[in-house]
């Protein structure tokens, strides 16, 4: 075999190219590692994660887990991570609800509602999120009064430019019974729901599952709560000289970031939902009507399950975008992972490689977990062909 013939063999060529690509990639990575070592070596600093155990020395405005300025950098990292997860989780829930409402609103027969939803989507989608985050932050601060002149809410709450202050529940000894009652009620509801579904499949008889379930889940704990003599106190926020103390506080940074993330992502989710609903063939709705299903049932049993198949994959992308976009918190001072860790910790320690490495790894991990979870959900709703 000549050399040319040898090289024209697809398998040989494919193998050769793969070896070449692999070698190239390895060489590239090695080249970067060598350069980094050389550069850091000249400065006398190596890659070392020991700094994570050092005292942080700075305060953080929102600490869902215990933290003060004597805590370690690692603790500060955890605070940032929890804050990121919190705003992402809240944002995903709110954006999904709002997105579904607006997506369906765009298909409404009410002209005004449909147009309003269209204008909303087209405005929000076409303006950078960074701009919206900063805008909402300024808007929240401009619209709200000073703490001394805060808007008094019922049950001792207060709304002012330092945040939304709500009374914090403080549990007393008997409260455990209430919690147990709730768990039992939920378990019972699940069992009941299974039974009702099986009975309906077998006999066609329906059972008012929603009403009974709701009564059980809400009523049982309430009953126990009252019987045990309301073992729950409320710690109300009180106005000190400059600020409120006590209670639960939602800081303006969180509120602004959450509003911006929710409104922005909801516009994209609305489009996803609209496309999903439009993808359900009209015949399906007509057939459901012919079977005598009323509109709510048609939506729930016919349209939504089919639309979900189309919706889930792009919805996953939107969730991933929201999680990554939460890093724009850095623009307004919400103490998320990027703000606390990539900005403050990096600057106090100067350990760029370590901090950026950890930050990126964490985001990759969160994205991966979300993608896997959504893929599982997708597998559940996907068309099961026999």
């Amino acid at each position, binding site marked *: 075999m000549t050399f040319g013939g040898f090289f024209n063999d697809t398998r040989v060529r494919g193998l050769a190219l793969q070896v070449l690509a692999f070698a190239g990639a390895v060489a590239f990575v090695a*080249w970067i590692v060598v350069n980094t070592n050389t550069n850091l070596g000249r400065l006398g600093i190596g890659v070392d994660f020991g700094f994570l155990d050092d005292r942080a020395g700075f*305060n953080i405005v929102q600490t869902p887990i215990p933290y003060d300025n004597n805590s370690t950098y690692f603790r500060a990292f955890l605070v940032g991570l929890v804050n990121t997860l919190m705003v992402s989780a809240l944002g995903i829930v709110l954006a999904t609800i709002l997105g579904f409402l607006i997506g369906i609103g765009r298909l409404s027969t009410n002209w005004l509602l449909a147009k309003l939803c269209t204008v909303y989507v087209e405005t929000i989608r076409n303006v950078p999120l960074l701009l919206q985050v*900063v805008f909402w932050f300024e808007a929240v601060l401009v619209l709200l009064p000073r703490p001394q002149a805060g808007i008094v809410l019922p049950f001792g709450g207060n709304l002012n430019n330092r945040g939304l202050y709500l009374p914090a529940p403080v549990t007393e000894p008997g409260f455990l019974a209430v919690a147990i009652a709730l768990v039992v009620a939920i378990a019972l509801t699940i069992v009941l729901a299974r039974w009702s579904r099986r009975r309906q499949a077998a006999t066609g008889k329906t059972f008012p599952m929603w009403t009974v379930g709701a009564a059980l889940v809400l009523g049982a704990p309430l009953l126990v709560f009252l019987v045990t003599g309301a073992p729950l106190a409320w710690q109300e926020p009180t106005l000190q*000289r*400059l600020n409120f103390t006590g209670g639960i506080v939602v800081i303006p940074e969180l509120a602004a970031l959450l509003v911006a993330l929710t409104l922005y992502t909801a516009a994209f989710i609305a489009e996803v939902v609209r496309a999903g609903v439009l993808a359900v063939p009209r015949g399906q709705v007509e057939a459901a009507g012919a079977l005598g299903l009323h509109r709510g049932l048609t939506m729930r049993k016919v349209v939504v399950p089919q639309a979900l198949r189309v919706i889930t994959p792009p919805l996953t992308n939107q969730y991933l975008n929201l999680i990554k976009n939460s890093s724009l918190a850095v623009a307004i001072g919400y103490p998320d992972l990027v*703000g606390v860790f990539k900005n403050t910790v990096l600057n106090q320690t*100067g350990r*760029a490689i370590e901090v950026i490495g950890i930050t990126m790894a964490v985001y990759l991990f969160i994205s991966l977990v979300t993608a896997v979870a959504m893929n599982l959900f997708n597998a559940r709703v996907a068309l099961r062909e026999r």
Partner: protein
Amino acid sequence: MKTAVVAAIIGVTAGLAAAAPASAATLDDVRARGYLQCGVHTGLFGFAEVDNNGEWAGFDVDYCRAIASAIFDDPTAVRFTPLSAAERFTALQSGAIDVLVRITTWTMTRDASLGLTFAGVNYYDGQGFLVPADAGFETAADLDGGTICVQTGTTTELNLADYFNSRGLTFTAIAVADRAEAISAFEAGRCDAFTADASNVYSARMTLATPANYEVLPEVISKEPLGPMVRIGDPQWLNIVRWTHYALLNAEELGVTQANVAEMLASPNPEIQRLLGQNGAAFGEMIGLTNDWAARIITQIGNYGEIFDRNLGAGSPLGIERGLNALWNAGGIQYGMPIR
């Protein structure tokens, strides 16, 4: 085919980058490049800001220009890299900039752990507080229980915690990465006070819509010696930055100004002769420059006092007193090491 393309791209990139000259001497890199890369603040009136003509101006900016004058005889041979507080050290460590002149406080940690070092103190500062005039704050301790806006990753953020905790006071810190955003949050009432280096606080007050409604608390809670930074391991480059600073101070002490530097060349005073490289004084060559290095700086930029007045002092809207930054023989602590 596609693999070949990918492999080729990787190969070419690696080849190109590897072929580039590798050198450890910053001065050689700067000379080869033809301009100085100077890291400055993203926008702090008085220290570094783009003015209405679209030119960088300020105290730190003039230091960058002075170094460029010393090297290139051209104060415009500088490219400014605006950096946030969080980016500054990484940018210098990585080599994205040659020198960092960005109101950076000299601390032991920074000297010891960053792989960087300070070349001197060009501005002695301390941490101050900006508060609304009608809020009734007289001292920083009155801010007990209050909310304070601060920039992330600064010594200010750490001092604040020390000051309040050591006195048993409480506070809430709103740490914002962008200085302008921190100030606008303070102006909108998010915080009871804005804290930063005193000079920075005065500058912030000026950009508020109604400066008269705000005042700076009299007390200063920390020592903030601000200075230019370079990478360790390059003594020649450290000397260039350090002695540019001392040359500026010595020029002021000896009365050499932008206006009279030409006459001073003929001065019989041996100290001035050494500064300006006259009468066989060859100090510039010791640090890899030409002997008229300081004369060029003063001709093109002025001496320390002129730079201060123009950007921060009597000649600027800020009107900051010389205070600690007066020369050692005029009640301050700015002391230029002798050129000899």
